[in-house]
């Protein structure tokens, strides 16, 4: 297992390099150039040239890329054009909010999906099954921002159980503020996981090894958790890992609806403001985050299923 982890960590290197190449290329493909973003639309050519020289944009691409990789490696992602702050400071400020929102959403999704998948699978074809599946079907077909607005109106504005936006002060207050947004974000992932796990459980529940486990006289709970759930989870964990990227992009919308000062909002604002160092830095940070999550789900997968070659 240790050597497997080491190998997987090594594989992160080419992944990160690839991310850097893509980000580097993308930023240069964005419409509008940084100089006019800084100077405004009525810039004179001389100023544009000066800015380009200052930013190193007049040098060959290969050299620019080298400089770029070097500064990223030393933790320097440049300064925001509009906010006049180091991008790393901005990321350190905003990304934890998004990570917390995403982790909460992921947990809520799992907590909703697993028991309901069990109910639906064990009572397949009954009213309970169709109710669960129907509810999730509705959730799945509802856009994130719409669901967010409904929750906001009902539980925020009407019932006043939760704040209608913002992030609050202190950890507990943060959790409280993030609860509705996290539920919003969790819903479609939960539906996807529930569907997958439900059919995985149905596929496993009459398996020979489950029959054998029953023939040993094990308690039903043990059979269900150790033999059924554990095997059924293998495919669901893979799906969960693959969904993290989607979850992060959902976080962008959710942060906008709930006015949360996270990385998603920062990203949207920066794209509109053509604040390309921020866009670039955030993209790298998010991509690395997703890669690390993939790595973690891979490890869980290996732990769940010893047949996966190490």
């Amino acid at each position, binding site marked *: 297992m240790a050597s497997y982890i080491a190998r997987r960590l090594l594989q992160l290197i080419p992944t990160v390099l690839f991310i850097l190449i893509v980000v580097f290329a993308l930023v240069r493909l964005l419409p509008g150039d940084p100089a006019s973003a800084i100077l405004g639309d009525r810039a004179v050519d001389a100023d544009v040239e000066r800015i380009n020289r200052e930013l190193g944009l007049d040098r060959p691409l290969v050299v620019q890329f080298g400089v770029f990789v070097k500064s990223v490696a030393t933790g320097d992602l440049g300064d925001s054009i509009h906010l006049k702050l180091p991008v790393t400071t901005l990321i350190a400020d905003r990304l934890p909010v998004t990570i917390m929102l995403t982790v909460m959403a992921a947990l809520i999704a799992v907590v909703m999906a697993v028991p309901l998948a069990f109910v639906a699978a064990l009572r397949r074809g009954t009213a309970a099954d169709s109710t669960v599946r129907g509810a999730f079907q509705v959730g799945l077909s509802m856009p994130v921002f719409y669901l967010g607005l409904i929750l906001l109106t009902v539980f925020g504005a009407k019932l006043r159980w939760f704040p209608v936006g913002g992030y609050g002060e202190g950890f507990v207050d943060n959790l409280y503020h993030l609860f509705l947004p996290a539920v919003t974000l969790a819903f479609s992932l939960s539906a996807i996981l529930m569907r997958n796990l439900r059919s995985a459980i149905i596929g496993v529940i*009459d398996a020979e090894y489950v*029959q054998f486990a029953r*023939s*040993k*006289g094990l*308690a039903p709970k043990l059979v269900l958790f150790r033999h059924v759930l*554990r*095997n059924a989870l293998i495919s669901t964990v893979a799906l969960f890992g693959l969904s993290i990227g989607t979850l992060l992009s959902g976080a962008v919308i959710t942060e906008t609806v709930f006015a949360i000062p996270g990385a998603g909002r920062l990203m949207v604002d920066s794209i509109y403001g053509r604040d390309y160092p921020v866009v670039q830095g955030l993209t790298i940070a998010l991509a690395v985050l997703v890669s690390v999550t993939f790595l973690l789900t891979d490890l869980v997968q290996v732990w769940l299923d*010893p*047949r996966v070659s190490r």
Partner: protein
Amino acid sequence: MSGPKTTEPVLDVRNLTATFGDGELTAVNDVSFTVGSGEVLGLVGESGSGKSVTLRSIIRLVPASGDVSGEVRWQGQNILAMRDAELRGVRGGQISMIFQEPMSALNPVLPVFTQIEENLKAHTDLDGNGRRARARELMDMVGIPDAARRLKEFPHQFSGGMRQRVMIAIALASNPRLLLADEPTTALDVTIQDQILKLILDLRDELSMSVVLVTHDLGVVAATCDRMAVMYAGRIVETGTVSEVFAQPNHAYTRGLLGSVPHAGTERSRLLSIDGTPPPLDRIPPGCAFNPRCEFATDACRATVPPLQDLSPGRSVACFNRDSVVAAGSPV
């Protein structure tokens, strides 16, 4: 092969019936048999004749769509009427089962030790050390070398024969009195088959267990069983000691089965092999279910189901024309 040890039966199955799909499909139809102490009973028949469902019904191991009725007498109780908690004490603790495909019957994601240990946890008072020691002992007992290391391994790391030994070790963990073995050697190649059968017989002697051995292979029955029951389309059609039945089959189906057994030193003699296949559950013919394939069939066979009649204690047959079958002699 020893003779029948006719003592009080340990297992007494009466009128066992198993249906699927709201009782529309009858996989096991009014089956009765007994198993004596230390006895090996062979349950024989072509694929689809209801052997596995019979075996599983004994410990109520049928899917939710199935329904089991009748009576299974065990230690003065009826297993089919037991509360679930009591049933769990019997399963694995008193009656264990091994399956045909060890690859699919062992949980692929759990180390062998866990799969043995959970049985011990359910049925013994052993502590952690005791369970570890017992697991090693079981691995030795079923002939798996290097027990300490192999206990940590997963099923896919074992060969087919070793995997079947693992399953036997798991089944025998808590010293059951009865082993239900569902074609335990069908998935294995011939030399390994013999080793596994020998292992089961040795363990039967060592642990004074009884065994119900399901197989479609009469060679296996001849080599291992004391008594046999022949099944066709969910019913038992003939019972007796192995020597009695081989010497003089009374049912046309048994005779057909015996006729297709390969004999020592000769090619598989197909002279008497039975044409056709057993009927699916939704198309079991009226009368004797075997009649469309039977060379002895008469009008009575197509009209009425022949009752299972006792010829002598432990010897019974359900055939209208058994005189003709007997007159035709044993093909063996």
